[in-house]
């Protein structure tokens, strides 16, 4: 669909080559292409701006014009920069404490419940003994959904459909998990908007009481410019420990990943790559960089 960024850059540079040294002005066209590519990938407006400024500095420093393929060199520079920005290497979950409490949070429909199931499945396959806690009291059939997933993967689910209090349910779930010697307890929560004060207070209270070791912010990879607002607010309220990027089996370029990383600076720990319980992967910054750049 989109033209290869590298070709575009090569072409932009070709125009420049005849003009001798690189000046601020003749780099502008190239930078415009880069910025557009980033914005088309849903990288946040401000992030795209500061990133292109940095790349521009680098390009002026390296003598890009004398390179055989300036577009190639520049895309490599960008790829390296992006990879570094998205956090050099893979960050593992902290599972030292027994039981490890993991709280799942995010917007409506992001993929939290599905991820909770996938994570339980993943940890089970690594020899852990997880318990899922059905903490969404709002969405119709949210509890059934988690119970069905639990059954599919053979992981127990704590639920209390009579209760409407997510703090109480989380605490009951933890007690149940301790009783049954579960060494990981994963708490699913209802989807909520960052500007919904009441709902944000509620999840802050769940955190307060359960003292989770990991709080994972689940976000749809197709999210646009709003990703920064949401991530910022959730992080301010929860100080989450990691990000989960879902639905990457689609064809979105996933610029939200970069935006989130740049505003909250928390590691992306997992990616969702399908609806099945096995469709979970660790996050590779370099692959994400190439994807955002459309390569």
């Amino acid at each position, binding site marked *: *669909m989109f033209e290869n960024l590298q070709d575009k850059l090569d072409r932009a540079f070709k125009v420049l080559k005849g003009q001798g040294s690189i000046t601020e002005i003749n780099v502008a066209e190239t930078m415009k292409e880069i910025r*557009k590519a980033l*914005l*088309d*990938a*849903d990288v*946040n*407006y401000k992030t795209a701006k500061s990133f292109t400024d940095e790349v521009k500095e680098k390009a002026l420093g390296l003598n890009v014009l004398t390179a055989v393929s300036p577009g190639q060199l520049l895309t490599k520079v960008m790829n390296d920069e992006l990879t570094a920005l998205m956090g050099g290497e893979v960050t593992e979950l902290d599972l030292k404490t027994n039981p490890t409490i993991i709280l799942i949070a995010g*917007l*409506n*429909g*992001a*993929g939290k419940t599905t991820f909770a199931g996938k994570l339980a499945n993943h940890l089970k396959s690594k020899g852990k003994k997880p318990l899922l806690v059905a903490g969404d009291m*709002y*969405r*119709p*059939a*949210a509890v*059934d*959904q*988690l*119970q*069905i*997933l639990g059954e*599919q993967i053979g992981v127990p689910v704590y639920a209390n459909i009579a209760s409407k209090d997510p703090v109480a349910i989380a605490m009951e779930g933890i007690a149940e998990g301790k009783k049954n010697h579960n060494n990981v307890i994963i708490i699913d929560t209802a989807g909520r*908007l*960052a*500007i919904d004060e009441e709902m944000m207070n509620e999840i802050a209270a769940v955190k307060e009481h359960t003292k989770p070791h990991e709080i994972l912010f689940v976000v*749809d990879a*197709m*999210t*646009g*410019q*709003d*990703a920064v*607002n*949401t991530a910022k607010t959730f992080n301010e309220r929860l100080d989450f420990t990691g990000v989960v990027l879902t*639905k990457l*089996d*689609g*064809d*979105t*370029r996933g*610029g*939200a990943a970069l935006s989130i990383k740049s505003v909250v600076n928390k590691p992306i720990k997992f990616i969702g790559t399908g*609806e099945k319980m096995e469709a979970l992967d660790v996050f590779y910054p370099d692959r994400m960089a190439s994807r955002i750049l459309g390569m």
Partner: protein
Amino acid sequence: AGKSTVDDDVLDNLEEVLVTSDVGVTTTLKIIDRIQARVAKDKYLSTSELHRLLRDEIQLMLSENNSNDFRKFEYGQHKPYVIMVVGVNGVGKTTTIGKLAHKLKAEGLSVVLGAADTFRAAAVEQIKLWGERVGVRVVAQAMGSDPASVAYDTLQSAVANGEDVVIIDTAGRLHNKIGLMNELGKIKNVMEKVIPSAPHEILLVLDGSTGQNAFEQCKQFTEATDVNALAITKLDGTAKGGVVIGISDQFKIPVKYIGVGESVNDLQLFDKKAFVDSLFN
């Protein structure tokens, strides 16, 4: 605020507002070009005039396809009027169906829902609960059964009962999955067997917080199923849903509904003016 003429700063600022509302670079440039053409003619345009002009231009882009705004939750010509709801995972299809059923019922129409998402865990249970909540009948089969067969049953039952509106839920699917997209065609074809003109409305639900990928969603779903109406959900959040401007400009498909919350009453008819105003607030 002190500026009285349109200069580069004003246009840069405009660009930022539009891009951060997910309007996208291409559409933003198109809008700015239109504005600049006006500015060139009209040298002493004030910023307040610019804002009015801008709102007009965007509304125009939206209305080239939404020839008239929808005024009421009602359907006249076909009985039953059949709506098939499609979209990628988690955008709000099932919730929109529940809310729409509620609105139609309030207009005095009898509504039946078809639980043709037989795939996602507890999807059938979810739509059944919506049916209970708003007091409409739901036709369902077991999880894992053929969605086309559920759609067929629902239409037959609606015809037999003389119902006014049928709404068919479908499983969320990413538009790049060919097998799943072809399945939608099958569901649609089966409906034609019961009612040759059905489905009358194929409603693509887009999540209002989605960025530029919404273009590809619209393209692929339209190719697979002749989408003829759009719903934008989750506009009660901070996301502006600006991508819809470029989408309706390119695909000429009207936006019919917007979702503004999770409760039964949180569905509204799309109003261009209110939508454009919300971009600038």
